[in-house]
């Protein structure tokens, strides 16, 4: 069984979800099934984590030919980069079932489906398979958002769906282009990710394919200025969906860049990295500043999430191992901080029936445990040392300085930007005097407290003992750059797009 553990982690939730939808199960059964299956996936993932060798290469490989004439395989595998996103998915999603109960069965079924699809996208090592999971993971979100979202859910649903599909279809064209190029250059069909690094891509079409990938990922991440679907979708979506979107799905966009764009399009990447890095930085500042103007705490968190994603994406564009590792680390950290903040926002909304910051106040005194949890997640989100948020952010800024001083300095402002809106919100919601809505605020129940506890512990543990986690990531990230070593030789000949900014070496 263990050689197929990835398939199990992927298809257990999918099959369970489909069964739930197909049978007249009631919502208690659905919730129970969801809990059990997601816990089962967690157990499998933990087992996988402990057995992971950290060689830097893919492990737990499964490979079954599918469309042999085109070299499409059902192939799975994880390396240090995907392992962490996989773990974030498996660890975080079970929480949802414990926290929110007043929903229909389809809600749980969709959650299971999205979990399976996301895991599939993370583990797939064939581009076509990846694409299939990539698209499939949008569908449950579409239904969850449309069925269980807030009042203005329909425009938000349409926008996120059309926007992301538009991007991903462009990626499909790019994927096919890669497959065809591989056929042209090596005489055999293949869509395997690891083979694509051997491709020698040049010219205008290659640049277009690069943008095909980049736009798809930029929309998913979302990178400025492709983020406009985000505030509405995050705000209107039910909490669990927002959580899934921000904690995992957005990360798969970043993961895609690392997996596809970085090894395959080394030339284009070297040429456009600076532009993309600026987009990341601008997005971070833009969304961070916009967050301060929000009156709805969920929307504020949405902007905050977008702001952080800008920084995470930046780490990938900096083309050095510190920044990349920082990004991967920050992916998990962000999932545990901002992602969890969305869950807390859901708890707030559930108990006070409002999302307006102005309607709340004084909750810290009413609910000290909740306030403590919230504060820890918030501090992780603003990157306080000792929490998970710091390590990644620090390494990204460090790497960005190396990449381009100007970008690095701007990236550093995330320290300030993040803290501004977070403290402002914390002040309004948790400090000051209670309002009628928050007057009877109940603290977290024992079950809720225990459910969140692992994440809170994880936030602290990731801040204090990051190396236990990094040990599994770094072999893979270091490999990304050692693999493109020969490419680096000819990327040296590439003139990057001219953007103002100092270079450290020139100082």
């Amino acid at each position, binding site marked *: 069984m263990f050689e197929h553990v990835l398939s199990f982690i992927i298809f257990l939730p999918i099959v369970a979800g489909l069964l739930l939808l197909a049978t007249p199960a009631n919502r208690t059964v659905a919730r129970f099934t969801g809990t059990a299956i997601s816990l089962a996936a967690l157990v499998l993932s933990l087992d996988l984590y402990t057995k992971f060798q950290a060689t830097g290469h893919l492990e737990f490989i499964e490979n079954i030919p599918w469309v042999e004439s085109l070299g499409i395989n059902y192939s799975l595998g994880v390396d240090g980069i995907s392992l962490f996103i996989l773990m974030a998915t498996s660890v975080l999603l079970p929480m949802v079932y414990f926290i929110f109960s007043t929903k229909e069965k389809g809600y749980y079924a969709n959650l299971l489906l999205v979990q399976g699809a996301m895991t599939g996208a993370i583990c797939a090592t064939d581009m076509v398979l990846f694409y299939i999971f990539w698209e499939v993971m949008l569908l449950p979100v579409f239904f969850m958002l449309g069925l269980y979202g807030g009042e203005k859910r329909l425009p938000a649903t349409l926008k996120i769906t059309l926007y992301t599909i538009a991007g991903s279809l462009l990626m499909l064209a790019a994927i096919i282009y890669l497959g065809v190029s591989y056929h042209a250059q090596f005489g055999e069909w293949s869509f395997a990710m690891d083979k694509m690094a051997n491709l020698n891509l040049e010219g205008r079409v290659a640049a277009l394919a690069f943008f095909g990938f980049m736009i798809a990922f930029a929309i998913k991440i979302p990178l400025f200025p492709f983020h406009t679907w985000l*505030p509405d979708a995050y705000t209107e979506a039910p909490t669990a969906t927002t959580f899934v979107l921000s904690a995992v799905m957005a990360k798969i966009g970043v993961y895609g860049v690392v997996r596809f764009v970085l090894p395959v399009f080394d030339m284009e990447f070297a040429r456009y990295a600076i532009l993309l890095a600026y987009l990341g930085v601008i997005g971070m500042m833009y969304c961070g*500043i916009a967050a301060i103007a929000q009156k709805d705490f969920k929307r504020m968190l949405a902007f905050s999430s977008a702001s952080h994603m800008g920084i995470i994406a930046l780490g990938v564009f900096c083309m050095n191992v510190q920044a990349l590792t920082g990004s991967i680390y920050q992916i998990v950290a962000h999932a545990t901080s901002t992602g969890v903040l969305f869950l807390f926002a859901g708890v707030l909304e559930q108990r006070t029936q409002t999302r307006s910051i102005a309607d709340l106040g004084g909750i810290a005194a009413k609910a000290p445990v909740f306030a403590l949890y919230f504060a820890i997640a918030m501090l992780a989100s603003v990157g306080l*040392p*000792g929490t998970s948020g710091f390590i990644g952010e620090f390494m990204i800024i*460090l790497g960005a300085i190396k990449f381009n001083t100007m970008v690095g300095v701007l990236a550093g402002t995330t320290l300030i930007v993040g803290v501004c809106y977070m403290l402002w919100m914390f002040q309004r919601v948790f400090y000051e005097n209670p309002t009628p809505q928050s007057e009877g605020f109940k603290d977290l129940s024992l079950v809720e407290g225990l459910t969140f506890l692992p994440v809170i512990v994880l936030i602290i543990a990731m801040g*204090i003992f990051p190396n236990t986690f990094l040990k599994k990531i770094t072999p893979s990230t270091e490999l990304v750059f050692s693999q493109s070593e020969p490419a680096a030789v000819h990327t040296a000949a590439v003139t990057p797009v001219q953007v103002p900014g100092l270079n450290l070496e020139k100082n």
Partner: protein
Amino acid sequence: MEHSVTYLGLIPLFPLMGAVLIGLLHVFTCNRRKLPEMLYGLLACVGPVLSFIMALKIFFALKGMPADERFLSQVAFTWFSVGDLHINMGFLADPLSSLMLLFVTLIGSLIHIYSIGYMKGDKNFGKFFSYLNLFLGSMLILVLGDSPVVMFVGWEGVGLCSYLLISFYSDGTDNVLAGNKAFIVNRVGDLGFVLGMSFLFWGIGSHGFDYMSLKANVHHLAPGVALATCLLLFVGATGKSAQIPLYVWLPDAMAGPTPVSALIHAATMVTAGVYMVARFSFLYAHVELAGTIVAWVGILTALLAAIFGMFQEDIKKVLAYSTVSQLGYMFAGVGVAAYSAGIFHVFTHAFFKALLFLGAGSVICALHHEQNIWKMGGLKKKMPKTYITMLIGALALSGCPPFSGFFSKDEILYSALASGHFGIWAVGVLVAGMTAYYTFRMMFVVFHGEPRDQHAYDHAQESPAVMTVPLIILAVGALFAGFLNLPAIFGGDQMVSHWLAPSVTEHHPHTGLFVEIIAIGASVVAFLIGIKAAYSRFGKGAEEPNFSGFADFAYHKFYVDELYDAVIVQPYKRVGAAIWKTIEPNVTDAPVKSVSTLYMLLGSAFKILQVGYVRVYAIYMIIGLSVMSLFLSQTLN
């Protein structure tokens, strides 16, 4: 000599564990039944006291070593390691950090004890001590960290704790705002720190990013990068240590409980900047320009804060500006490469400033949280212990020989003069006079003269022993700490300077006795003039003045807060609103919207074309056919 030990990590761990324990106890009990305050108090004091004992142990361990090999280190574990970047969770105790450790833990412990009395009856008693312990723990990490990154943990930690403690009375909006301000302004500084670290790392960090390795490789650093690093790190220091232009948070930080102010101003937090510059003395010594900039920023801050201090009416704000001003001195000291003098001033300042704050707290407590000095007066009789101890503190602050402040401040001014920074020295002397003036203005108004608020005066009484005993201990420190670094001219042997010598890169200029006497003389004269001026105006009781002209301007702190608000805060908020209300829907989202609009328009156009007349469809076919024929004849020829 065995330099590797295993107990360094315990020093910050004691208070941190206390913080976690107390915090959890508080969180889980505060809304049910209250635990006795004494339990929290005891738990809270255990950590700092144990740390203090450990600090003594370390001090003596170091003392037992040969002077140039005085260090202890501990690598607890690898914190993170990626590529060239290896960061250990490591601790380093050398003379510099051991000195810091000693007084931080000592004063920290005293403040903890004092707080038991001060916070009596507060509903968040447990929370307060949890924060206080956390604060001290962070500071100890900052002091002990063996690399800039570990230091940064404490650096940010104290920032966080200052936020938590300043907004401790969290139902008041102003308090929380003050907390926010402290955290955000500190974050601005932290940005500088992080960027500085990054530059340093890419410059020389690949061989190891701890102080030892950095010191060994500092000569490889390109001059430009070195200057940038120094200045960026100094930006961090201005944030933490409240220097121009980031000093604005410190006076507002008075919103927190008074022991917190004492802690922030004396033992932790604000001295971190000075300590950091001293830590990086090898770097600053490498770039002279950076040092000069540091010194000038410091001394100008000292001047500015002294001006503000002369017109404050809140007893704590007077002290707050005096702190900013004294910090300016310290930076002037480290800026002119007199690191030991700067650190010595940190050391003495810790005693007398803690003393003054705790004394002020005692006064405030006695007057039921009245802080306006113009509502006080004549308290000398009611609170003799407080008065005497505070007087000692005030004399030390003003630089009256032989109190501790005199020696340390004098050392700085002398160093400035000796190293040829005449301007800095001159401003320093001026500020010394102003310091004496505003300090004694406060003393005279509060303790002398007639009571201005009879009702409050009648109810005022001396504080309990748990508060006064720390005052007395601190007073002893404020009196005698100066003798530890007695310069040769007074027959001393500059113990502290020699102790610190292995840790900091400095060279003592050799000047004649004449210069030294000028420096001392000028300081004493300035002190005397200042105290005379204060006495003549406030010595026999004075009424609250109405400010006008420059005084009014200074009373309003040159409107710097308002300026920042108008230039930075409000525009920032407006930009945020503009992005959300205007830019996002009309600019960023415009392409998306216009595409969908275009799409719908084209859709309705095509709908019109479906007219329903079959003849027209035939015409479409013929038109299409004709166009295609044309096209064909074009392409095929």
